[in-house]
């Protein structure tokens, strides 16, 4: 398909609209469901629906709905970026995509090594999803990463991967690694094993949540300061919080933007480090050689 053709541009526009539509849906949902309130309040995710389950009721909360909508939006963003790729880079879009993919490939390669190059899509998904989830609060939406359930889910996925790669070097070795260096320390090793996903989930969630809480506190403080300093102005001028314009935005540049992107990077890097260090290459090769020898003798 020609880059300049009308059909190509139409598909582009449709993909862009489909990308923005979920975010608009989330905003509309937010406006419809948030009760009219005075001032600023700090609350957790709103619960939209409760589905009854035998052990525990499943709660459909704002965090889940926002992250689903974000996933749909990112899906169309990827389609838009990957639309009309050609062997020779022609568009800025393709150059951007190639630059991003090269950066990601370098990151995975330098942190995990040659053996784990199949992890590029997974790490990229974690990076992009976590980054944009944190940045969702810039639109005034509830960011899914400031809910512990979301980050705990991601940390559980990473924990499953770590355990899988430890098992790959032999189940007996996995069990034995708990009694290292002496068997008495097994409870300690068990705790440190469990602490990995817990600390990953808490770290991401705590950073994002504290950032958003501090932003809200700063906004409230500036509103109070404005009514204290400029309260003598007549009429609506006195009531309007002038100091709240602009100043909190500068601070939220760190608390929302930098901290969100940094936490995404840290989560991805920790995933890479934990997974690649869980896999003992020498032991894996030795086990495979032993198995091959057994097969030959049979």
């Amino acid at each position: 398909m020609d880059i300049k053709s009308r059909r190509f541009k139409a598909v582009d526009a449709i993909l862009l609209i489909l990308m923005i539509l979920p975010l608009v849906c989330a905003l509309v949902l937010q406006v419809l469901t948030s009760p009219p309130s005075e001032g600023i309040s700090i609350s957790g995710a709103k619960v939209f629906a409760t589905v009854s389950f035998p052990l525990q009721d499943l709660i459909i909360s704002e965090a889940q709905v926002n992250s689903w909508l974000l996933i749909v939006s990112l899906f169309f963003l990827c389609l838009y970026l990957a639309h009309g790729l050609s062997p020779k880079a022609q568009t800025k879009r393709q150059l951007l995509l190639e630059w991003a993919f090269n950066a990601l490939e370098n990151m995975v390669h330098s942190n995990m090594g040659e053996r784990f190059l199949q992890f590029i899509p997974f790490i990229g998904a974690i990076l992009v999803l976590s980054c944009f989830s944190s940045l969702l609060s810039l639109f005034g939406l509830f960011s899914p990463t400031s809910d512990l359930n979301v980050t705990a889910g991601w940390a559980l996925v990473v924990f499953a991967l770590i355990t899988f790669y430890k098992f790959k070097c032999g189940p007996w070795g996995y069990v034995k690694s708990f009694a290292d260096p002496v068997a008495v320390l097994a409870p300690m090793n068990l705790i440190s094993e469990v602490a990995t996903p817990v600390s990953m989930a808490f770290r991401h969630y705590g950073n994002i949540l504290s950032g958003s809480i501090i932003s809200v506190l700063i906004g409230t403080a500036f509103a109070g300061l404005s009514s204290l300093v400029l309260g003598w102005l007549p009429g609506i001028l006195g009531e309007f919080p002038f100091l709240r314009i602009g100043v909190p935005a500068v601070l939220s540049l760190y608390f929302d933007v930098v901290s969100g992107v940094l936490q995404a990077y840290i989560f991805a890097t920790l995933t890479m480090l934990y997974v690649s260090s869980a896999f003992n290459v020498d032991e894996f090769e030795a086990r495979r050689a032993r198995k091959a020898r057994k097969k030959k003798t049979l």
Partner: protein
Amino acid sequence: MLELAIGIILGCCALGAGFAMIAGIGPGIGEGNAVAKACEAIGRQPESKGAVTSTMLMGCVIAETTGIYALVIAILLIFVAPNMLVDILLTAIGG
């Protein structure tokens, strides 16, 4: 009497949250040390800036963990614990 009890609960939750954040001292000192050493290393070998920075970030993150635990506990004490404890108190009185 009930007001007093609820007041004690709210006050102790706030105090506990404040005390929990004493744990912020440790990560602060630790991360400061890490960043200082990283700056020294970059000053000595400017060409290794990338590797030093990423390693320092990872170290800072690990050092930050205890602070984040304290932060989560403080947030729970401020936003979750008062309602829960007051509910427990009210059911204990009512039941």
